[in-house]
């Protein structure tokens, strides 16, 4: 794979570099002066951030700093919240996602999301994964749908665990399996970006390790934006880290650099445990 830098808009995914390469990567999401409010609460203040293809970027910061709000602005999930407002620009492959003609429903097929608490639907394992492809009409027949479901489950390492019980409820799985099911459900739709909102905070350490391994594997094919409270986790899974405080982006940089040599006083205080 070769890096292409000449064209910022609508770059095909094949043109990305591997996650470990340090070459200049093509921008996937460009956030410019993004502000967000819930009613009177000013949750995000003038955030500008570029997220490139092939990277795993971790959003860290104290509770209430706006990490999750920023994440939810990227798939317009905040549209569903009464009283939420957004100003500024978010471009996905050069296309403004807050522009009038953009259908948030179509956007969300390209920007998937995994939540803090595993939230499998009260349906069978199969139907959980098949739900997205069905509503987007991705499969024309049952065989194709079976294929999508199997590939997605295989991708998250769940297929060998549940192969014989695809028709059992997804809610019967363990917490870690449920979260992997939710990831499988997300990638079944074929997104470019996966947003993860503290995906391991409800899981035990072993399940957490599995999810982190999975994030490493998925990073080859998807842009991953992960919100986490655990700085160890940020250090383990991400290639870049963005530190937010009180709705403002304080610092962003290579993971190693942020944790070893933070430029900003606030970042240093946070990663050394003095605030947050």
């Amino acid at each position, binding site marked *: 794979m070769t890096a292409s830098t000449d064209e910022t808009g609508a770059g095909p995914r094949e043109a990305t570099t591997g996650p470990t390469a340090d070459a200049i990567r093509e921008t996937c999401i460009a956030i410019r002066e993004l502000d967000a409010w819930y009613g009177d609460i000013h949750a995000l203040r003038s955030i500008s951030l570029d997220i490139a293809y092939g990277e795993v970027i971790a959003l860290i910061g104290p509770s209430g700093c706006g990490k999750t709000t920023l994440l939810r602005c990227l798939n317009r999930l905040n549209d*569903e919240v009464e009283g939420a407002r957004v100003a500024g620009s978010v471009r996905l492959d050069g296309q403004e996602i807050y522009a009038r003609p953009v259908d948030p429903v179509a956007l969300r097929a390209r920007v998937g999301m995994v939540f803090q*608490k595993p939230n499998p639907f009260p349906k069978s394992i199969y139907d959980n994964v098949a739900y997205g492809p069905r509503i987007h009409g991705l499969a024309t027949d049952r065989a194709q749908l079976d294929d999508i479901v199997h590939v997605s489950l295989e991708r998250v390492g769940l297929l060998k665990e549940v192969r014989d019980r695809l028709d059992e409820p997804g809610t019967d799985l363990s917490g870690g399996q449920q979260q992997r099911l939710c990831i499988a459900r997300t990638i079944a739709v074929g997104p470019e970006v996966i947003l993860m909102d503290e995906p391991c905070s409800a899981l035990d350490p072993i399940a957490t390790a599995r999810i982190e391994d999975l994030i490493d594997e998925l990073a080859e094919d998807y842009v991953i934006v992960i919100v986490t409270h655990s700085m160890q986790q940020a250090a383990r899974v991400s290639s870049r880290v963005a530190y937010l405080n009180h709705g403002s982006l304080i610092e962003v940089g290579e993971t190693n650099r942020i944790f070893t040599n933070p430029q900003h006083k606030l970042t240093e205080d946070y990663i050394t445990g003095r605030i947050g």
Partner: protein
Amino acid sequence: MNMTTVVLLLSGVGIAAFYAGRSRALRLGGGIDAARHLHSLPGYYGYFVAIWATLPAAFVLLGWLLVRERLLIAWVVTGLPESIRELPPGQLDLLLNNVLNLAVLPDAVAADPVIAAATEHYRAAVEISQWSVAVAVGALAMLGTWLALRLVRPGFRARNRVEAVISRFLVAASSIAILTTIGIVLSVLFEALRFFEQVPLHEFLFGTSWSPQTAIRDDQVGSSGSFGIAPLLAGTLLITLISMLIALPIGLMSAVFTAEYSTSRIRGVVKPLLEVLAGIPTVVYGFFAVLSVAPWVRGLGEALGLDVASESALAAGLVMGVMIIPLISSLADDAIRAVPDSLREGATALGATRYETIVGIILPAAMPGIAGGVLLAVSRAIGETMIVVMAAGLAANLTANPLEAVTTVTVQIVTLLVGDQEFESAKTLAAFALGLMLFVITMLLNVLGLTFVRRYRERYE
């Protein structure tokens, strides 16, 4: 001394005992500091003494009130002359009734010397018994107070005792509901059994003709009546079906609107309005049905060239459906709102539209709650009486045609019991058999609903 005075005095003793117990605890505990030395708060010692002062005495009083009538009558009977005691039970009862009626009138004197003597006898017995009960109650109250006061010491665990008594009261309160239900079921059951002595069970269950006309007097020429329940069940079922066909879609859709689509402001207006609909008395729905809807249905039917009875199952079912809409919409709204937001967001984040989310995720997840609500609504429709009494008519037609007049189980119970009836006749007893039938059907529905809901829950939550 009459019973009201006794009760008032007992309450007075209770209050006095409370203060006596509390002040004794405070004194033994050492005055101002008492709270530190006492095991329980001072008030608990007061309650403890008050309970001992009043509760045993109250039980004696209650016991007396329960057996009073029977004891007094037995007393009067023993005082009657031999010849009268030998009378057949019916005549003896009549005579005793006379005595009791005379006894409550202060100046009444019976013409018959035997009755007059018995009345005097009765009055004396009432007087003596009331005094002795008052004395017994008073003595018990005093004894209880004294014993309890002796127990009051700083180390005495008054709070635990008082709380134990309170928990007994709670148990008693919940048993009252259960015992009452059992009592009602048993009384209906026994009357129904008496009915089945006269009309065989299979005739009742499988007979296709309902015409409960029996001779009221022996010399009357009347039909022997036929008690086949099938037309009533068919009518009940038909009307229930029509009402559910109206209420289920409309109620469900309005619930989806209020729970998923409306803003909180619209919801604040719509929900109370729906609840007003639920508060309308059924008799009002009844005359709405019979005066407005039934003629309208008839007119519409005639315009279409159909033959519609003036009291049609359709009219009653339509109005009953409207009555049930708020029940279904309110319960379904609760069930839908109980679905965790995480599922909504999960589906939305996958790119599902709001409609796809509702149909594919929310409604299936809310199904146990919705099904429970629907079963409640069905029970309500089956048991509903007023609307069908007014709008459905009395003709026991075995038909599936909603344009004909039908009758329901509840309507027949009402008509069987209204007016002068001989209690022993099959006609009157049939009402109890119908009531039992109704009870069994609704109970089966509820059991069915609960098992369904439970199984569904186990699978998906």
